[in-house]
C-alpha cells in the first residue's frame, strides 16, 4: 500500500521536501512509517522532539495501523497564537 506523508515546519526543513509517497507493507503502523522515514531522511531525528501524529487530518496514536491512500503528518510541537 502507499501513503502520502506531508512535512511541515522543522520537519519539512529537515527532510528537504514537503511531501513524499511511501510504500508500506499491509498492517504497518504510524511508528513503522516513522522508522522508515528516519532511515530515508536521517535529519528527521530531532533530539528531544515530541511528535504528535495525524492521519487524514485527525490526531491518532502511534500504534494505529495505516491504510492505502492515507495522508499522514508528523506534527512537531505546535506554536500558533
Amino acid at each position, binding site marked *: 500500500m502507499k501513503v502520502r506523508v506531508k512535512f511541515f515546519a522543522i520537519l*519539512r526543513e529537515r527532510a528537504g521536501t514537503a511531501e513524499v509517497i511511501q510504500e508500506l507493507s499491509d498492517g504497518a503502523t504510524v511508528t513503522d512509517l516513522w522508522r522508515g522515514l528516519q532511515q530515508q531522511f536521517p535529519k528527521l531525528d530531532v533530539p528531544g522532539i515530541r511528535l504528535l501524529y495525524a492521519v487524514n487530518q485527525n490526531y491518532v496514536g502511534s500504534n494505529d495501523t495505516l491504510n492505502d491512500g492515507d495522508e499522514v503528518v508528523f506534527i512537531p510541537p505546535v506554536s500558533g497564537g
Partner: protein
Amino acid sequence: MFRVQSKPIDLTELVGYVTDAEAGAIVTFIGTTRNNNEGRNVIALDYEAYPEMAEKELARIGAEAAQKWQIRRMVIVHRLGPVQIGEASVVIAVSSAHREAAFAASRFAIEEIKKTVPIWKKEVYEGGEVWIGTQTGQPFHR
C-alpha cells in the same frame, strides 16, 4: 467561520460576522507578534500551518466552546506566512447574550489553539532563527 489566511486580519469584518441582534456582548481577542522573546530581539516572524487540519481543529474548538457556553456566534482567524512585528497573528471574536460566556469562550479558544492546532511559528533573530516549541538545546540550528 474558522480559517487560516496569508493576508492581514480585518478585525471589523470579524466583529461584523459575530454581530447578532440577540447578543449583549462581543469579546475580541487579538494575539499580536512581539519584538522580543526570552531576551532575544525578534526581527521577523513566519507562521506555517497544515492548513486543512488547522481549520478543522479551529472549527472543533468553536464547536466545543458552543457546547460549554451559551454563545451566539464565534470566529477564529489565524495568519500564515510572514507577519510584521505588532500585527495580529490570531483574532477570536465571539458574541453571547451575556458577557460571561463570551469572555470564557474566547479564553478557552486561545488556550486550545496553543495546544492542538497544527500551526508553527518561526522567530528570526539577528544571527539565527528557531521554530518555537522545538528548541532542543541548539537554539539556532538551520
